[in-house]
């Protein structure tokens, strides 16, 4: 159900744009209003989510440790996997964000000959990281539509990405890898009954949405029927970027579908699990040093408790205690 629901939603949106921008000629809505609105929702929504998280206290040290804690001098501590300094945490976060280190440790539990056994399982890590890096490359390459002159790093990336020089226009490796990785991530949820049971529309929808963006882009680039005039696309994109929006004549509807799905992704982003983009930096299980034995951590929202120590008690009643011959710590 969840799968079909998500797929239908993405197809429905595409059809909606086909009707709106293709048949009714509402290009100004799909080319100007929707993208600007989506960008606003994204920027404000993203900031609100981060500030919301920043307001939540983290009362305990809860780093997940994956190595020896700092302890006696002759026991070798694991500086990065159980970090106890700021640089240790920085190293750990960098490896988490750039290399998906914790996912690399992913294991799979299986019953073999009646016994539970854990085995290494790296496919999710591999396709996960392929997906993220190809996506990033494609987004950076797209800057050619939003910059004039096109910066050096965008041109260089474009050339490296097309270095196999297959066909004309040349095939970008990232396009092939992105689609393969997305299909893996999708099929992974479908073939395994447990995964399927756990998957919700919120899991399938982003996959279909990004797949939709990728496939419309690919159709626009490689298939003659769907090709669009890129110079006009650049005029539209630069119009958006310079706050001087225009709708050039004759950009094919495939472009508007691509742009609309992208806008949908932007607007959906702050409200979805995709917020892990910001959230990963705020995960207390990763970004706290494991130093509870070295420093005292006080719960930040501890209510101030009024304490009355024995010393105070004695101060209050010292004379009376001496009169009654009770022992006191401090003489009057």
């Amino acid at each position, binding site marked *: 159900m969840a799968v079909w629901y998500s797929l239908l939603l993405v197809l429905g949106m595409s059809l909606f744009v086909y009707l709106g921008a293709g048949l009714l000629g509402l290009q100004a809505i799909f080319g100007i209003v929707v993208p600007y609105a989506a960008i606003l929702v994204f920027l404000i929504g993203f900031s609100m989510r981060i500030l919301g998280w920043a307001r939540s*206290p983290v009362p305990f040290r809860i780093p997940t440790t994956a190595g020896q804690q700092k302890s006696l001098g002759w026991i070798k501590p694991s500086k990065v996997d159980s970090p106890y300094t700021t640089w240790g945490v920085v190293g750990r976060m960098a490896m988490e964000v750039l290399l998906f280190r914790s996912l690399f440790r992913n294991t799979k539990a299986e019953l073999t000959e009646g016994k539970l056994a854990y085995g290494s399982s790296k496919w999710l890590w591999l396709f996960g990281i392929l997906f993220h890096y190809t996506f990033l490359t494609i987004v950076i390459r797209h800057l050619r539509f939003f910059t004039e002159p*096109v910066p050096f790093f965008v041109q260089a990336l474009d050339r490296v990405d097309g270095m196999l020089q297959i066909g004309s226009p040349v095939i970008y490796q990232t396009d092939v890898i992105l689609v393969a990785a997305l299909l893996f991530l999708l099929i992974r949820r479908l073939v395994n009954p447990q995964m399927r049971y756990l998957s919700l529309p919120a899991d399938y929808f982003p996959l279909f949405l990004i797949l939709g963006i990728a496939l419309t882009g690919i159709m626009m680039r490689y298939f003659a029927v769907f090709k669009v005039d890129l110079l006009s696309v650049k*005029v539209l994109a630069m119009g958006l970027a*310079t706050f*001087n929006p225009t709708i050039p004549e004759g950009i094919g509807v495939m472009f508007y579908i691509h742009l609309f799905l992208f806008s949908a992704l932007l607007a959906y982003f702050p409200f979805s699990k995709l917020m892990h983009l910001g959230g990963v930096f705020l995960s207390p299980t990763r970004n706290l040093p494991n130093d509870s034995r070295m420093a005292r951590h006080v719960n930040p929202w501890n209510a101030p408790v009024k304490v009355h120590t024995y010393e105070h008690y004695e101060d209050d009643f010292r004379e009376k205690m001496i009169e009654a011959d009770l022992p006191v710590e401090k003489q009057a």
Partner: protein
Amino acid sequence: MYNAGKIIPGLLIFLGLVTFPFWSNLGRAYDVPELVMPEAEEECVLAGDWMRANHMILLDDWRDLAVRDNKRLFTNDAGKRFDMSLTKTCLSSQCHANKDTFCDRCHDALAITPNCWDCHVVPTIGEE
């Protein structure tokens, strides 16, 4: 708010990165590069609109036909015949004789760098 000293700068850096297209273009307007069209000829090999988006597919077909099948004559819808040649037809003195003001202006705007001219000759203009 907790750890505002780290989270706020982080958020600002992120917002700065994602709004790059907007602030890097502040105060600028985009001028569409002007493409110099051939004077001697009215029509392109195929319809102009189609060529704008699809010329690389046509060139690819031509290349394959010429190099692999030794077919070097192309007849368009109107029955007109062309030599299937990058330099001798597209860039001929009748048509896009000046690659700089036509092909390159559009390609540069979009960071497209075809490698064709590593091998193929670009006709020189202004010399006989």
